[in-house]
Structure formats: structure tokens, C-alpha cells
């Protein structure tokens, strides 16, 4: 039986109100929901990112769970060690990395790759707000092509680094993309990740009102549009078998997603058309991969 809102209400989450997150933060929303599914038996590891700030200044924290803040490059390595220590002590505890896209796609990539290759028994979550946000919006490897940041004033020229597929190429037992635009898909993927042993990776698209130039009320709506326009498809790869988990009945034009965000406002119609072609191409690739027994 899939979890319902009523079930979630009865489950204790690890997020306390009154944190340092900006209004409408996609990171706090997804953590609030996911921490309920992950449950009390969970330890978090967080590299430098917005989440380090969101926790609030010492000596208080808005996160009601054991949590280790660690250096940018080290989250997956620290989590591997913590999990092994618990296993040595015969303690069954979920160890979960909760990292931003900078600490995942750029600075933390080698530790992530190492842990995935060793098939460490941890869950790695990347909440992807598509830039270094808490330091003032600098581009990351996960910033999409075309997006304005303070270091890509005319829009980023290079495409977004496809981290979920990089992790899938390690033959990790479970890789998924998710977002708060489809909360029950997200919830199901966390449940599934919990039921699997080995390295599990969940890549969350995480709308960020100040960094994306969007109204704080539109976080959920924009996350949904990202999927409905094929800009951020929701899929999972389980032991090499790929499945698209949300298939919008009708694709929305990419313009609907881009035109409501300040970071894309400078784009010309030709640039939008090019980005739309790229998105449709990737969607078609996914459809092809879905037909295969295994993509690896």
C-alpha cells in the first residue's frame, strides 16, 4: 500500500519550523517529507551547502536527528565510514547523505563515485538547486544550459552534468530522480530506496526562489512544470532496468517553464527552441532505454 497524506501525518519528521531557509525553499520541503519516510532510525551527513545554513546557527539546530556536517568533498566518504562502523557494531541504522549539487556534481564527485563503486550501503540524496546558492548564486556543473548565475551573466553555455546517469553507470542498485512537483512519486522512491541494500542515489530537483528568480509561492508548481515540459524527467533505474515513473499525458511547451523564472528571462526564442529540442531528445532517449532489459 502506498503511503497517503494521513500516514505521513502520523510519521515523525526531522524538520522543525523556524529554520534559516528562505521562504518557499524546495530543499526544506523535500527534507520535511523525506525525513518522515526515512524515519527515526536515520543519521544524516551534510557537506557544505544551503542545508548547512538552513540548520540554523549554533548552539541550536532545526534538524531533529543526528547529523554530521562535513567538508565539501567528504560527504560520501564520511557516510561510508559511519555505516561501516554501525555494521561492525551490528546496528541497523540508515546513513543518508543530504548534499547540494555543488557538493555532488563538482566538489564531492570523487567521494560519491568511490562510494558508488564500492557499493557502500548508504543512501545519497542530492537536492539540486542548480547552482551554489548560499554563497550568492554561482554556476555549478549541475546548472542547466542557458541559466543566468552571477558567474554566467549571459547564461551558462555548457549543458547540465547528468549526475544520476553517472551514478547509474557505476551499476548502483538504485538510482532515481524526483521532485516536490510530484510528492507521491518522491515518497515512493524514498520507500523503495529504504527497501534496497547497497548504494542508492536520489537526485531531487529543488526549486530555489532567490536563485531562480521565482515567486516563493510557486515552488511546487515550477517543480511540476519541470517534469511536464520534459526538462526534468522523473525516472528510476533498478539494477540496470530503467523506468520512467511519471509520463505527463501531454508535454507542455518548455517556454511555460522558462518564462516564469528570472534566470531564464534573457533567452531568445531560438535558444529556447534549442533547449526544447535537447529536452525532447533526452526524453526520447529515456523512452528507448525503457525498452531495454538493462541499460548497462
Amino acid at each position, binding site marked *: 500500500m502506498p503511503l497517503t497524506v494521513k500516514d505521513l501525518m502520523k510519521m515523525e519528521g526531522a524538520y522543525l*519550523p523556524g529554520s534559516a531557509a528562505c521562504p518557499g525553499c524546495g530543499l526544506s520541503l523535500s527534507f520535511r517529507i523525506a525525513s518522515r519516510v526515512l524515519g527515526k532510525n536515520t543519521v544524516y551527513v551534510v557537506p557544505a551547502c544551503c542545508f548547512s545554513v538552513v540548520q540554523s546557527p549554533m*548552539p*541550536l*539546530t532545526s534538524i531533529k536527528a543526528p547529523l554530521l556536517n562535513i567538508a565539501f568533498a567528504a560527504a560520501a566518504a564520511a557516510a561510508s565510514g559511519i555505516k561501516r562502523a554501525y555494521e561492525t557494531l551490528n546496528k541497523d541504522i540508515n546513513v543518508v547523505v543530504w548534499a547540494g549539487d555543488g557538493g555532488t556534481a563538482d566538489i564531492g564527485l570523487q567521494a560519491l563515485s568511490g562510494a558508488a563503486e564500492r557499493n557502500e550501503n548508504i543512501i545519497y540524496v542530492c537536492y539540486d538547486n542548480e547552482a551554489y546558492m548560499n554563497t550568492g548564486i554561482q554556476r555549478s556543473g549541475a546548472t542547466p544550459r542557458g541559466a543566468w548565475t552571477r558567474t554566467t551573466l549571459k547564461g551558462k553555455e555548457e549543458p547540465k552534468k547528468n549526475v544520476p546517469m553517472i551514478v547509474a553507470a557505476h551499476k548502483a542498485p538504485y538510482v532515481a530522480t524526483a521532485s516536490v512537483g510530484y510528492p507521491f512519486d518522491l515518497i515512493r522512491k524514498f520507500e523503495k530506496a529504504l527497501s534496497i541494500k547497497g548504494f542508492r542515489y536520489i537526485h531531487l530537483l529543488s526549486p530555489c526562489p532567490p536563485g531562480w528568480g521565482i515567486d*516563493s509561492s510557486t515552488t511546487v508548481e515550477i517543480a511540476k512544470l519541470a517534469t511536464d515540459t520534459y526538462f526534468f524527467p522523473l525516472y528510476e533505474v533498478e539494477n540496470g532496468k530503467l523506468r520512467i515513473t511519471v509520463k505527463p499525458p501531454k508535454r507542455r511547451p518548455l517556454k511555460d517553464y522558462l518564462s516564469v523564472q528570472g534566470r531564464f528571462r534573457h533567452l531568445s526564442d531560438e535558444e529556447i527552441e534549442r533547449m526544447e529540442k535537447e529536452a525532447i531528445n533526452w526524453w526520447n532517449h529515456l523512452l528507448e532505454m525503457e525498452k531495454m532489459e538493462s541499460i548497462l
Partner: protein
Amino acid sequence: MGLSEELVLPISRPSKGASGRTGVWRVFKPVIDLQKCVKCWQCWLLCPEETILADDVPKVDYDYCKGCGVCAKVCPTKAITMVEERE
């Protein structure tokens, strides 16, 4: 008493309002019209701040609600209106 008094371990304690009474950040506040509410709990599920209280009916925790407006956007019956805060 193994640890010396001067040794400060960098450990934080969980607390509500660890960044203060974030309700004061608000420019608009969500007001729920219970006549229109059908108790679907979408507002509870999608509030980023955990400030919709799930009693019999949804209630806003105005001490910490940051006024983002997500709840008003996702409510299917438009039972939530964002009203400008006054001094």
C-alpha cells in the same frame, strides 16, 4: 565529569525557532477559510516550513510561518488567501 569545562564541543541542540521567530519575516499571511476547506491536507503536505498544524482542521502556526504562499497556491478549493500583514 570526564570532559573539561572549557572544552566546547561543536554540537547543536534541536529546537523550534532555531533561527528565531521566523513569522516576523512575513509580508503576507495565509488565512484559511474553513467553510471552503475540504480537509485534503495538500497544504500540510506541501508547506515547506512545517507550519500548517494538522488538528481537526488545518491551522497556521503564525509564530514561524514565513508567508511563502505555497499553501495558498496548492489548495484545490482556494480556501487559503494571502493577506497583507499590517503593523
